């Protein structure tokens, strides 16, 4: 867009009150019960993702406690094998599909527009649709549990155990369809974040000024785009094998059970990075803010995140070392698995250098970062160990692996997440949390975590396979299991304290003001809690930490966006120079009805594939409603050619 359309004005007088009134009016929330289903604001949707995911976290945690109670003593008859298998399957599926991925997506949906300086995500209605898909998927799985249709083949549901013959009934179909729901939601969010970051950044936020958390969400979204289709294919093929008798995984008719493992882990390994990369983004933000200096090695960190994203797709076979693959292939995947340590290592060194060169301030979020270091480095190192085929075939599918992936996922994603929520809590609620309680919580979680999962390394090396509902008294595993179960209770206490702190602080925590942590990124420029339109005026970005360069009331602003409709500024992909104004749609119920149609189709197709077609028809009407234009749109007859 030619520069003559833009004019830079020095000393501009703004009628703040009028702008605020107009924006509040055009961005107001739809009211009432129905309004809840019409909501398209990214903060509302993001918060729904986070809250829903935490509800599932609590459910998954209760399942974990039940399992630890069962394993606390040898030959315990608390859960029968059927129930135990269902519980660990639901625990794994809940934590992976209904907590870890959605909560990271929720954080992204909530924070990305605030951090890049825009008013909403690029496709607000699609965003709402994605949330309903996630919600329906979760309700669907948990409804299945109460209808006695809880899946029981493990969260990676290996065929033929999960196939039509060895998993009778509809249990596994419910599981497979839950995946379709949640992955659809993940893909929708990925598109949202990619397009939002590419097109809606505040003017001046060129690629090298994007906050690292936003980079992490961008890379994560691209990983979702390439990884999630694999699991949708896999679960779709499993469903078809189970319901209409296809033969993808049936060796007797030319299929191969290992095809499931390949397609599943082609998703399943990147999945780990899909969860972990946003965690590193959060750590990078926290380290920057609380070391009180710009991050050291910004470019190195961004390149590391990107290369992690690439290498993450070359590792899936290291979940299959025991399936009898050719030795040469195994060496290749060992090398690839070790290779991914390098970018992660570079990030750690940059964070350490940032702390080294800064003036660290030990706040509660920073304690979570320290816990992350303690736990994740250990988990990463045990990951380096199991990258080696010879060692992996000893500990594969034992409690050593259970310990490893809890160290990596809880250490690498949950601790940063808890720190990040503590950190961004003032922006979400306008209030501060209780620091003393927060610190105690962090310590309890750190101790409880290690108490639970460290003994599992020992158990795995001493021969205890994972997913056993009982073990005999003379196995010698009893004391370590008891220790782990005690640790689980400690974690539960920590979790309760964390929630107590949130609920108490939300009601009567101290007011935070716009920028309680003296942070440098854009989201701290606006009020706390952020208004529905995010920024009264879109800021112009001139550096990585705009608020550290000049006081927030001296930051140059964009004027001239219409306030009587939901207008945002679209910028160029690379240098983020202003390109055109763009009207975002307002509240609407149609995405909800499309989601209902999709839900009916997916749910029905568990029983009969024709429901899928019916669901498509049901979607059609609200879909037309969604896209049918209103007459009052001014017609632009001739477009200029793209240059």
């Amino acid at each position, binding site marked *: 867009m030619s520069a003559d359309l833009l004019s830079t004005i020095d000393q501009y007088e703004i009628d703040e009150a009028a702008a605020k009134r107009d924006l509040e009016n055009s961005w107001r929330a739809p009211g009432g019960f129905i309004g809840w289903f019409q909501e398209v604001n990214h903060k509302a949707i993001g918060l729904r993702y986070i809250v829903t995911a935490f509800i599932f976290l609590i459910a998954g945690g209760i399942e974990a406690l039940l399992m630890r109670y069962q394993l606390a003593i040898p030959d315990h008859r608390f859960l029968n094998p*059927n129930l135990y298998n269902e519980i660990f399957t639901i625990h794994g599926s809940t934590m992976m599909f209904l907590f870890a991925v959605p909560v990271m997506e929720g954080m992204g949906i909530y924070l990305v527009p605030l951090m890049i300086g825009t008013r909403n995500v690029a496709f607000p209605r699609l965003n709402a649709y994605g949330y309903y898909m996630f919600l329906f998927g979760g309700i669907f799985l948990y409804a299945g549990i109460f209808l006695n249709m809880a899946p029981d083949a493990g969260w990676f549901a290996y065929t033929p155990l999960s196939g039509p013959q060895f998993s009778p009934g509809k249990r596994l179909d419910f599981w497979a369809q839950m995946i379709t729901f949640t992955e659809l939601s993940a893909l929708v969010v990925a598109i949202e974040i990619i397009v939002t970051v590419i097109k809606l950044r505040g003017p001046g936020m060129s690629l090298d000024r994007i906050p690292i958390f936003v980079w992490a969400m961008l890379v994560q979204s691209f990983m979702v785009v390439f990884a999630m289709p694999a699991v949708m294919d896999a679960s779709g093929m499993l469903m078809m094998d189970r319901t209409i008798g296809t033969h993808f995984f049936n060796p007797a008719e030319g299929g191969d059970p290992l095809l499931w493992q390949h397609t599943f882990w082609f998703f399943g390994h990147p999945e780990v990075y899909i969860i972990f990369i946003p965690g590193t983004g959060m750590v990078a933000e926290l380290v920057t803010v609380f070391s009180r*200096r710009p991050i050291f090695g910004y470019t190195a960190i961004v390149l590391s995140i990107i290369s992690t994203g690439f290498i993450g797709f070359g590792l899936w076979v290291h979940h299959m070392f025991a399936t009898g693959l050719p030795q040469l292939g195994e060496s290749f995947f060992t090398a690839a698995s070790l290779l991914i340590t390098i970018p992660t290592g570079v990030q750690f060194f940059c964070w350490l250098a940032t702390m080294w060169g800064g003036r660290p301030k030990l706040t509660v979020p920073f304690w979570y970062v320290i816990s992350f270091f303690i736990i994740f480095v250990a988990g990463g190192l045990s990951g380096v160990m199991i990258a080696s085929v*010879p060692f992996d*075939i000893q500990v594969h599918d034992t409690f050593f692996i259970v310990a490893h992936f809890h160290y990596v996922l809880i250490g690498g994603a949950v601790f940063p997440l808890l720190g990040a929520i503590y950190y961004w809590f003032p922006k979400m609620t306008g209030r501060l949390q209780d620091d003393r309680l927060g610190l105690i919580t962090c310590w309890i979680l750190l101790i409880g975590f290690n108490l639970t999962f460290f003994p599992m390394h020992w158990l795995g*090396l001493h021969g205890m396979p994972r997913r056993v509902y009982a073990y005999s008294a003379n196995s010698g595993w009893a004391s370590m299991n008891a220790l782990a179960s005690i640790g689980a209770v400690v974690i539960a206490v920590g979790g309760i304290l964390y929630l107590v702190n949130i609920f108490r602080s939300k009601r009567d925590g101290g007011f935070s003001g716009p920028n309680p942590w003296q942070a440098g990124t854009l989201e701290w420029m606006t009020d706390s809690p952020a208004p529905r339109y995010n920024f009264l005026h879109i800021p112009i970005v001139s550096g990585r930490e705009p608020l550290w360069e000049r006081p927030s009331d001296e930051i140059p602003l964009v004027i001239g966006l219409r306030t009587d409709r939901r207008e945002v500024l679209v910028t160029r992909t690379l240098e983020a120079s202003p390109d055109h104004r763009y009207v975002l749609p307002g509240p609407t119920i149609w995405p909800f009805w499309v989601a209902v149609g999709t839900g009916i189709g997916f749910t029905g197709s568990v029983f009969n594939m024709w429901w899928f077609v019916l669901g498509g028809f049901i979607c059609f009407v609200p879909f037309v409603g969604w896209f049918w234009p209103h007459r009052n749109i001014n017609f632009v007859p001739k477009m200029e050619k793209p240059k």
Partner: protein
Amino acid sequence: MIALAGFTQSAVNPAGPQSAHIYHLWHLYLWICVAVWVLVIAFLIAGLTRRRPQPQTPDTKLRRSVITATAITIGILFFMLVASIQTGNALATRSFTKPVSIEITGHQWWWEVHYQFSQPDQEVVTANEIHIPVGRAVILKATSQDVIHSVWIPNLDGKIDAIPEHVNTIWLRADKPGIYRRQCAEFCGMQHAHMAMLVFAEPEPKFERWLADQRSGARSSAGAVVMRGRQIFENAPCLLCHTIRGTGAAGTTGPDLTHLASRTTLAAGTMPNTPGNLAGWITDSQRIKPGNNMPPINVPSEDLQPLLSFLESLR
């Protein structure tokens, strides 16, 4: 419980060359990783607590440190990769003659064992327990009849999956006599937890004797009670699923019982092989191992004792 005492099941207590290779690799890795962890945490603590110099540490110095640390990381990883590949090659090297070849077939939830020999009449079929000669290589062929299981004797070697329609092979050798327990390592359904097997590593002569015993048909004593027990067995549903060579029982869907009494455990390592446990298993196996495929058998109380006597005589 006496019969079950004295076994080991541990990856850090190697009893053969294969597991020893892996154990050495593990030790190497463990110390490297502990050192790295301590270093990272030490730098973290130092970075947080050290006295701040005025002026601040220049970025060039930080950059040099980061590059050095990355270079060291790459060096360590390369070293670990070489160690891993060397161990892998050592595991794959097969320099032995006259190995014992055993095919292990996974079933939900027990193990079918087949000692393979060039002459068919030499072959031995048993279940849930294997004997191997000390100092001689053993080739294990793993496959499955239903879902994926995994064969893993931690004291002797890493694991290999038993996948339907695939045959995976590993070799191992026990250098120390002993009883090594193993259990299924790939989740296989309801009773994955109770799918174990004992491996008896014993001197060659003892092994050969055992093998010869197993080759023969059922050799129960000819006492009246035992004969009555045999009659009961042959008229009961047992023979639909179980084989006792030398009798009319030739079912193949359950474990071979020809030498039941020579085995130390029942129900794939679930409990010691005692008459009491056997009686409990026959009458109500679902209480002991819920979901297993052995139906409850209604044995009148006066018939139970002869039946047990017969089964316990199958040495």
